[in-house]
């Protein structure tokens, strides 16, 4: 494959993390939360670095990528910290309320990872199209 599709791979891994099994034991709610949080850290960081380093090229083909990158810059760390706080709360008291709060926080991260995948798809496709012309 000459040009791999990073966005597709990220989306796939996000799904895999969301469906992670726990053969070695442990609470799957916590394990999925921690894996999703760690995945989101790396995804946000890589996406923002990519957008930062290639802004001119990306902005010329898809200004929305820059807008979403700034949205992540403004909120991403807060989303991650919220997910960590909710994970800690659930680990200390594994009741339904804390589980619901954790699920909501993790859903926010997953949604952001999915959005990044979409923007990467748009950006990469547009860049390839621009390259052909």
């Amino acid at each position, binding site marked *: 494959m000459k040009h791999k599709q*990073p966005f597709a791979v990220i989306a796939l891994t996000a799904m895999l993390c969301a469906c992670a099994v726990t053969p070695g034991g442990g609470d799957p709610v916590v*394990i999925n939360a*921690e894996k999703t949080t760690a995945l989101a850290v790396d*995804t946000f960081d890589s996406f923002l670095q990519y957008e930062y380093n290639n802004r001119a090229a990306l902005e010329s083909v898809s200004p929305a990528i820059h807008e979403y990158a700034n949205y992540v810059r403004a909120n991403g760390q807060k989303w991650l910290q919220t997910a*960590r706080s909710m994970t800690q709360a659930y680990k200390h008291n594994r009741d339904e309320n804390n589980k619901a709060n954790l699920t909501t926080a993790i859903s926010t991260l997953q949604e952001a990872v999915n959005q990044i995948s979409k923007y990467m798809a748009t950006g990469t496709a547009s860049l390839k199209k621009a390259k052909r012309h």
Partner: protein
Amino acid sequence: MGADLIIAAINAGITLIDLAMKWAADLKQSGELDEAGEKALDAKIANLSDKPWWKPQT
């Protein structure tokens, strides 16, 4: 816009595959994070805002 710039941008995106591969490998890991793992993750999150690409861009 030069073709080199576009190619560079595409290639930079491909580096994100490394991230996916890392996570595919991590799927083998099971169990909740231990205290050291939690501290490492929290520190990683706390340090994000120090990176230049996390600063608001106009």
